[in-house]
C-alpha cells in the first residue's frame, strides 16, 4: 500500500506532514484532497517537509499526503517539440484545450500526449545487442526534428521481439530486450528524474561556435556549442529580447526556452511568432525545433524552482540523440529567488541577502549540465546554457550575479546607460567577456576567414582606446584632441552605430550571417586604415571625414543583403577612391610648397 501522511503545517508553498516515515527525500507526492503535486524536501523522524508545485490556498489541516514512490520525473518522448509545458512538464495547450483559460489547481500529473499516434520506423532487429542510449526506432516529430527512440540509460540486452514499423502511441511496446534473464519492454518514451543529470560517455573539448547572427556576440563575445553564458542586466536592458534573438537565430538543432518567473505575454509572443518565423538554415518554421517551459511570475514558486531542471533534462535527452541543444533560462534570478523563498519558509539560516548558503553550488550544478559530449550511443551532442540574470537594482555585485559570474564561460553584461540611449543590444563591450575566444580561433579561421580574430582584436582596441579618450573629452571637449586621436573617436562611432547596434525588429538586421559580419568589419577596417594614414600624412580630419561616406557605412547594415553582394565591394572602392583622391591632392600641395 502506498504511503500516507497527514498535513500539520501550512506556510505558503511549504507544507509539513506527519506519518512520513515511509517516504523518500525528493519523492513526488500528492497533497490534500485536490491532489496537488509536491516534492518531499526533507524528512526528520516521522515529519516530512514538502514543497508544493500548485497554489496551496484552500488546503486544510489534516488532509492527506500520498506518496508516488518516485522522484519528480519528466516523460521524454515524441510530443515535446513545438509544445509548451509548465514547470513540471504539464502541457499548457492541452490544459487550455480542456477549457482552462486560467490555470486551476489539482489538474494532476499529465505530460506529453499519450494517445497521439506517431509514424514509427523501427530500426532494431531480433537478435541485435542494444546498449543504453542505442537508437532502436525513429519518429519524425516535426519538419525539423527526427526523434530518435533510445534505450534508456541503465538498460541493455538482446532484442527478442520487435514491432513492425507503423503507427503507435507512446505507451505501446516497440521492442523487447532480454539481459541475463531479465526482460525489458521498451516503448516510445522514458522517464527521468529531473534533478539527476543523464549519463554520457565522456566530455569533449569545446571548439565550435554557436552561431547567433548577432554581431556583437559572434564577433566580440562568441558563445560556444557546449558552453555557458550569462546575460545580466537591470529591467529593460534587453535580456529577454537577446534571449529571444538567440532562440530564433542560433544554429542549434533544438531550442529549450524556459520562461522562469517572467511575463506571461513573453511566452505568448513566442507562441505567436515562432511558428511564423523561418529558420535561416532550413527554411522551416522555428517552432518546429523549439520547446517552451513556462512558469510565469504569478505561477507557484516551487514549480519555478523545478522548471529549470525540467528544461535541462529535456535538453539532455535531445543531446543524447546527437543534437546540439541550446537552452535559455529567463531568468535564473527568479529561480534563485524561489529557492530563497522556500528556504525562508523553512527557516533556514540565510547567507547573503537572504539567499540560502547553497545558492552558488546549486547554480554551479545547473550550469555543469552544459557541455559538448560523446553520448553513450557514440554520437556527439551538446548543450549550451544561456541564463539571464536580473540583479536587484541593476547592481551586479549582488549574490546571484556574482555566483553566476564565477561559473559561466561568457558574460554578456547589459548596460542601463546604453539601453536608455537605445543602443541595442546593450551589451557593454568593455565589461563583457567570452572565455571561449581561445578555443574558437581555429573554427573562425576555417569557417569565416583567417584574419577574423585579428580583426576582432583590432576593433576592440579601437573601442578601448576610445573609452580612454572619452574621459578626456568629457572634461574638455573633442576639439582639443589631436587628429590621430579624433579619428579613433570617429571610427568608434561607426563601430558602435554601424556594427554593435543591431535592431532585433529590422528584417535586414535581425540576423546577420558570419560572412556578412566579416565583410562589414573589413569595410570598417579599410576606412580606419585609410583615414588613419591620411591623418599621419597631415591631412586635417575635417577633410578626412566625408559625411556622406561615413553615414553610408553606418547604414550599410540596413542595405546589405544576400541579393546585393556587391555592396561591400562598392563601399571599399568608394573608400579607396576618396582617400586616393585626398592623398594625391595633398601630395601635390606638399610638392608645390617645396
Amino acid at each position, binding site marked *: 500500500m502506498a504511503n500516507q501522511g497527514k498535513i500539520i503545517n501550512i506556510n505558503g508553498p511549504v507544507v509539513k506532514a506527519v506519518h512520513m516515515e515511509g517516504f523518500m527525500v525528493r519523492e513526488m507526492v500528492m497533497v490534500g484532497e485536490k491532489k496537488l503535486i509536491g516534492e518531499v524536501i526533507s524528512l526528520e523522524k516521522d515529519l516530512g517537509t514538502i514543497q508544493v508545485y500548485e497554489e496551496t490556498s484552500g488546503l*486544510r489541516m489534516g488532509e492527506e499526503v500520498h506518496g508516488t514512490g518516485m522522484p519528480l520525473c519528466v516523460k521524454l518522448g515524441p510530443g515535446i517539440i513545438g509544445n*509548451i509545458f509548465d514547470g513540471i512538464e504539464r502541457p499548457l495547450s492541452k490544459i487550455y484545450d480542456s477549457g482552462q*483559460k486560467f490555470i486551476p489547481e489539482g489538474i494532476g500529473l499529465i505530460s506529453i500526449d499519450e494517445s497521439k499516434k506517431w509514424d514509427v520506423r523501427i530500426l532494431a532487429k531480433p537478435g541485435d545487442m542494444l546498449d543504453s542510449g542505442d537508437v532502436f526506432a525513429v519518429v519524425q516529430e516535426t519538419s525539423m526534428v527526427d526523434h530518435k527512440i533510445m534505450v534508456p540509460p541503465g538498460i541493455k540486452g538482446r532484442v527478442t521481439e520487435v514491432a513492425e514499423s507503423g503507427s503507435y502511441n507512446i505507451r505501446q511496446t516497440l521492442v523487447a530486450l532480454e539481459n541475463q534473464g531479465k526482460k525489458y519492454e521498451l516503448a516510445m518514451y522514458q522517464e527521468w528524474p529531473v534533478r539527476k543529470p543523464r549519463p554520457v560517455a565522456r566530455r569533449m573539448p569545446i571548439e565550435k561556435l554557436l552561431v547567433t547572427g548577432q554581431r556583437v556576440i559572434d564577433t566580440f563575445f562568441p558563445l560556444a556549442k557546449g558552453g555557458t553564458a550569462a546575460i545580466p542586466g537591470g529591467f*529593460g536592458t534587453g535580456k529577454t529580447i537577446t534571449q529571444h534573438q538567440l532562440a530564433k537565430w542560433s544554429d542549434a538543432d533544438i531550442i529549450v526556452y524556459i520562461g522562469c518567473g517572467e511575463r*506571461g505575454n513573453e*511566452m505568448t509572443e513566442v507562441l505567436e511568432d515562432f511558428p511564423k518565423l523561418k529558420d535561416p538554415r532550413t527554411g522551416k518554421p522555428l517552432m518546429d525545433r523549439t520547446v517552451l517551459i513556462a512558469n510565469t*511570475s504569478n505561477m507557484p514558486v516551487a514549480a519555478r524552482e523545478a522548471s529549470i531542471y525540467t528544461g535541462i533534462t529535456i535538453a539532455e535527452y535531445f543531446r543524447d540523440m546527437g543534437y546540439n541543444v541550446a537552452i535559455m533560462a529567463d531568468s535564473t534570478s527568479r529561480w534563485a529567488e524561489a529557492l530563497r523563498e522556500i528556504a525562508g519558509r523553512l527557516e533556514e539560516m540565510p547567507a547573503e541577502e537572504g539567499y540560502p548558503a547553497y545558492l552558488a553550488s546549486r547554480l554551479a550544478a545547473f550550469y555543469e549540465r552544459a557541455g559538448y559530449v560523446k553520448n553513450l550511443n557514440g554520437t556527439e551532442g551538446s548543450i549550451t546554457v544561456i541564463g539571464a540574470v536580473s540583479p536587484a*537594482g541593476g547592481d551586479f555585485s549582488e549574490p546571484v550575479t556574482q555566483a553566476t559570474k564565477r561559473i559561466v564561460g561568457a558574460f554578456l553584461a547589459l548596460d542601463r546607460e546604453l539601453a536608455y540611449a537605445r543602443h541595442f543590444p546593450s551589451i557593454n563591450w568593455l565589461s563583457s567577456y567570452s572565455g571561449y575566444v581561445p578555443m574558437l580561433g581555429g573554427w573562425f579561421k576555417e569557417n569565416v576567414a583567417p584574419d577574423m580574430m585579428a580583426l576582432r582584436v583590432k576593433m576592440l582596441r579601437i573601442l578601448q582606446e576610445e573609452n580612454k579618450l572619452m574621459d578626456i573629452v*568629457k572634461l574638455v571637449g573633442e576639439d582639443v584632441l589631436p587628429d590621430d586621436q579624433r579619428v579613433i573617436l570617429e571610427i568608434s562611432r561607426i563601430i558602435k552605430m554601424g556594427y554593435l547596434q543591431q535592431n532585433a525588429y529590422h528584417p535586414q538586421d535581425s540576423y546577420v550571417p558570419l560572412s556578412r559580419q566579416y565583410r562589414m568589419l573589413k569595410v570598417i577596417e579599410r576606412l580606419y586604415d585609410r583615414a588613419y594614414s591620411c591623418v599621419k600624412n597631415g591631412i586635417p580630419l575635417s577633410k578626412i571625414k566625408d559625411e556622406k561616406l561615413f553615414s553610408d557605412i553606418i547604414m550599410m547594415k540596413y542595405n546589405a543583403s544576400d541579393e546585393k553582394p556587391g555592396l561591400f565591394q562598392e563601399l571599399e572602392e568608394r573608400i579607396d577612391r576618396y582617400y586616393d583622391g585626398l592623398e594625391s591632392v595633398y601630395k601635390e600641395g606638399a610638392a608645390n610648397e617645396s
Partner: protein
Amino acid sequence: MKVKYLKLDKAEGPLIVMNEVEGAVYDEIVEIQMPSERRMGKVVQIDRDKVIIQVFQGTSGISLNDVSVSFTGKPMEIPLSPEILGRVFSGIAVPIDGAGEIYSSKYYNINGRPMNPVARLYPRNYIQTGISSIDGLITLIRGQKLPIFSGDGLPHNQVAAQIVRQARISDEEAGKFAVVFAAMGIKHDEADYFRKVFEEAGVMDRVVMFMNLADDPVVERIITPRCALTAAEYLAFECDMHVLVIMTDITSYCEALREISSAREEVPSRKGYPGYLYSDLASLYERAGMLKDSKGSITQIPILTMPNDDITHPVPDLTGYITEGQIVLNRSLYQMGIYPPINVLPSLSRLMKDGIGKEYTREDHPDVANQVFSAYSRVQEIRALAQVIGEDELSETDKKYMEFGRQFEERFAKQDFEEDRDIFKTLDLMWELLAILPEQELTRIDPSLVKKYLRK
C-alpha cells in the same frame, strides 16, 4: 456549519494567534466578532492546532477573551454583477456609497488564477492618450501593464487623469469601456481629485472604485487591489469590456506587505521587504492582458512613488521587472515647469514595437521614435560637456543638439493638461524637432522615410 472559537492566545500588530483550532484551511477568511464591531481576517499560517490570522482592520481594541472567531473555510470571495459599475467600495469590497449591497449569485475568489499563456492574446492595439511623450515614445497598448514611476509631489495623478480623460477608444467600442480604480493608502484629497476627474469626463457611471485611504486600516491594503482586479477580470472577460485599471499607490501597498512580513518575523530581503515581494507584485500585475476567446481587455496603470526618487528602490525595481515598461516622472523637468514631466530616457513601453508602425499608427513611427530617443540621449551627454567647457565652445553639431534638447522639452514634452494631441500631430512634431539636426545624424531612420517626411 461554522465552528466558533472564543479565545485568542495572542494579538499583536496585524496578527492574532489562536490555539486548539481544528481543521483550519490555509488562506481561509475568518470573521472576528467583537462586542461592538466585526472584523475580518485570513489564515496566513497553520502549525498543528495553532493558527496565525492576519486581521484586515488590525488588532487594536481586540481583547483576548471578549471575541468570537468563526472560520468560513473559504478564501475571500466577492459577489460581482454588472451593477458594480458606478459604485464605490471600501478596500475590502464593502459598498460605502450608501447604494446597497451587490446581489449576485456569483462569487469570485479575489486571488484570481494565473492566466494560461496559451490562452493569452498578445496585445497589439495602441491606445491614443493624446500625450505626445507617451504616444510618440512610450506608446500604451491595450492590455498592457504600464506603471507610472513618480515621486512625492510630482503630478502623477494629473498624468493618470489626463490619460483617463483622453484615452481614445473607437466609437463602436465606447460603450464597452470601464475604469476600475484601486486606492491604497492615498490621501482624501487625492481620492476626491480622481472622483472629480471621472465626473468631469462624464464616465462616473463606468467607474468602479475600491478605496483604502491613508487613514483606513493598513492591512486592508493587501486586499484592495485583489478585489479591484477581480472586478476588472469580471468586466473584461465576462462582460467583454475594455477595462483600464488604475492602482495607486503601489508603494503604500508594499509597505503594508512589509509590515505584515516583519510582524511574522520573516527573513527580509532588501530594505526589509519580504523575499516574496516580486511574486506578490506579479500576482497583481500579471492580471493585465487579453484572452484569445474574449473580447475584453485589462490595461493597468499602477502608480508608485519612488522613495527618494530612487529607481533602484525595491518597489520600482521589482515593478519594472514585471510590468511591460514604465513611465518615469522626473523632478528636475517638473521644476523647469514642464508638464507632464516625463523623462523619456528611462521610460519604456515594451509592447510598443508590435502596436505601432504601418498597420497601427504610421509607417515612420518606429524609426522616428528610435531616432528621437537616441538624439535626446546625446543631448544629455552634450549638456554635461557644455557645463564644463561652456556652450559657446561646443561644435556646430553639438550646438544643434542643444537646440534640439530645448525644443524637445519645450514643444514636445511640455503640453497642457487640457491639450489632446493626436498621433499624427505628435509624429509631425517629432520630425520638426529632428529637422534641427544635420541630416547625416539621422542614422536610425530609413533613408526613404527621411526623404518622405523630413521637411526643413
